[in-house]
């Protein structure tokens, strides 16, 4: 991605609150949160070739831990946020041991099962999670005494966290480790023969995917000030997988575009189109038929063909 395009995006994102209404700013915050979550899943799906259907568990657990610490023990955000990240990352470390005994469909089923176990726990462990009534009465943090309850303030808070996370994720993807990870996706046996510990590479990726999902989970609970078992549900996991695949898995921009498509269809277009779920289906059908590797690679290829310069990007290139 060239520098000018990056500057355009940054300009758009920073200028947004000065021109758009409150509703659109909140929508933008939600897109950023969903995008960060999709980016974390993309580490597994796009770079590692490990399709997970239980990723919402990490988002949900981070949110629940943060909310529970506040409600039960009155922890401030300064204490609860690192603890929530720590607990969720440790959980990812444990789940990784279980899930990475398999790959492909087996991995998918194990992550699905683990996700559903946590969903069931959130729904029925009423004394901690308050069951179907969820945890309410939560607050947003006040970094440096700035009140984040306004739409603009929260948007900038989200934008800063998102940008910082994005920098880390880009560095991760472009590092030597990122190359090795892509190698384990495309040629695991060859990587093994070259002396790489394929399992360890996948395991570390699994843990970092869990960590970034936890970061988005914190943003999610700060935004909603409420957490309900549905946040850990299969629907949430599947929807995020759709974001990654529709936008273009294994690219850095793809999951962000995918998140924007899904959030906008779900929240904005649904106000005008009653059967918006059908529209969502058609959009995905269109993407699968005409841009099977996602919107971002598809558009890039189209652009290359139209301008007649550059070559079509290959799968896995940022």
């Amino acid at each position: 991605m060239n520098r000018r395009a990056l500057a355009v995006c940054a300009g758009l994102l920073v200028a947004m609150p000065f021109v758009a209404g409150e509703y659109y700013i909140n929508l933008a915050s939600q897109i950023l949160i969903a995008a960060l979550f999709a980016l974390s899943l993309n580490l597994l799906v796009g770079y590692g070739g490990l399709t997970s259907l239980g990723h919402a568990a990490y988002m949900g657990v981070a949110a629940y831990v943060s909310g529970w610490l506040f409600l039960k023990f009155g922890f401030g955000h300064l204490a609860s946020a690192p603890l929530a990240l720590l607990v969720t990352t440790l959980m990812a470390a444990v789940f990784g041991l279980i899930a990475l005994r398999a790959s492909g469909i087996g991995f998918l089923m194990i992550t699905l099962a683990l996700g559903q176990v946590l969903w069931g726990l959130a729904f029925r462990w009423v004394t901690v999670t308050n069951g179907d009534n969820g945890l309410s009465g939560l607050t947003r943090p006040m970094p440096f005494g700035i009140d984040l309850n306004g739409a603009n303030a929260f948007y900038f808070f989200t934008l800063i966290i998102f940008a910082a996370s994005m920098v880390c994720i880009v560095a991760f993807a472009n590092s030597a480790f990122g190359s090795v990870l892509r190698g384990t996706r495309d040629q695991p046996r060859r990587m093994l023969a070259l002396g790489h510990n394929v399992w360890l590479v996948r395991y570390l990726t699994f843990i970092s995917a869990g960590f970034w999902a936890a970061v988005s989970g914190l943003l999610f609970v700060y935004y909603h000030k409420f957490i309900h078992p549905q946040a850990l549900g299969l629907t949430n996991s599947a929807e995020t997988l759709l974001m990654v695949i529709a936008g273009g898995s294994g690219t850095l921009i793809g999951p962000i575009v995918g998140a924007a498509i899904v959030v906008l269809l779900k929240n904005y277009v649904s106000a005008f189109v009653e059967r918006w779920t059908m529209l969502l289906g058609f959009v995905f059908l269109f993407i699968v038929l005409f841009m099977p590797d996602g919107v971002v690679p598809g558009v890039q290829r189209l652009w290359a063909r139209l301008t007649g310069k550059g070559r079509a990007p290959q799968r896995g290139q940022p």
Partner: protein
Amino acid sequence: MLIKSLRAALCAAGAVAATLLPLQSSHAQTEPIRIGFLTVRTGALAAGGKQMEEGIQLFLKERNNMIAGRKVELIIADTGGNPAGAKTKTQELVERNKVHVIIGPLAAFEALAIDDYIRQTKTPIVAPSAAAEDLTQRKPNPWFVRTSTSSAQPNQPLGEYAAKTLGYKRVAIIADDFAYGHETASGFQRVFEDNGGKVVQKLWPPLNVADYGSYVGQLKGNVDAIYAGFAGANGLRFLKQLREYGNKLPVLGSATTTDEGILKQMGDEALGVISGSWYSAAIDTPESKRFVAAANKEFGADPGYYTLGAYSSGVLVEQAAKAVNGKVEDKEAFMKALRNPGTVKDARGEWKVDEYGNPVQNIYIRKVERKGGKLVNTVVKTYPNVSQFWTYEPKAFLAAPVYSRDVPPSKNIEP
């Protein structure tokens, strides 16, 4: 390079400004009353959402789309039956559509998800169905008023009816394993046991259980009756399987177990089920008969919990709007009128709003009978002017924890 980048950024910012500014233009002065309506059109709760929409549409049709001398603009939003969707749609109604009042949402967890937001934005919410106890008890919200019932409100009188009138001594409880199921069953248990009855068994099948067979098999045979606290289509499935397994014990139930919304799909298995509710389509008053006839004419079905809940929300909004002479823009005054409407009249009879925002109303003990070829909830007894606290002192009631799986404690469970 840097200058080029900066210029690109500025151009982009300008483009956003150009596209978004027209959307913020203010509306004209002579405006309709804008009512936001949070419903569910997709997912598991869509059946209830459809009935809610029918209720409000029927109300507006009868009023010719005018209340308190002003036209009504109804803006319907589909939350998808999930908390995040409820929040986003509420924001859309408040920030983009600038509604004066919101009717909805359907599920309790949706109401809890937007609780904080409506406080912050001071948006009047009229809830036609969400029944969670604490919405009008331990976490009362000054911007919230309910037109249906709290979960336990109709089940507390049912507990007394079962113990005193029916003379039951021992009851087994089976109810959906989520907050609404816990709260309905616990309300029944508390009053039943305070009147000398014993709840000797409690079973909590998960909401999405595929088959009730294993639970029916576990139910004790040496009880006087079974209390079934179900919502949605679960009541239908449970009653069918209960009778298929040859269990002939009498069944008591919460309002939603045999709600008119699903009663039409039931067969003989529902006959004789006794439930407590704040409404029955079989109430024998002229207003109720008119309402039932109108609903049958419009939608071809008897109205139930969700239909009347939404219809009554319309009635309450109209009454409050009249009280402030149509000036719904004055949020504080409008909300005050919504919380203190005096006596409201609709198909259920007359009701008032208590200081926590919950109706004080008649509770009907109903028995499923077959009349004129269809199943109806015949009223067998009316408890007049029942509060959400039943006969308990509100302060003591609120000091105790909210009804749940283990509240009140079950001392009479037999292994």
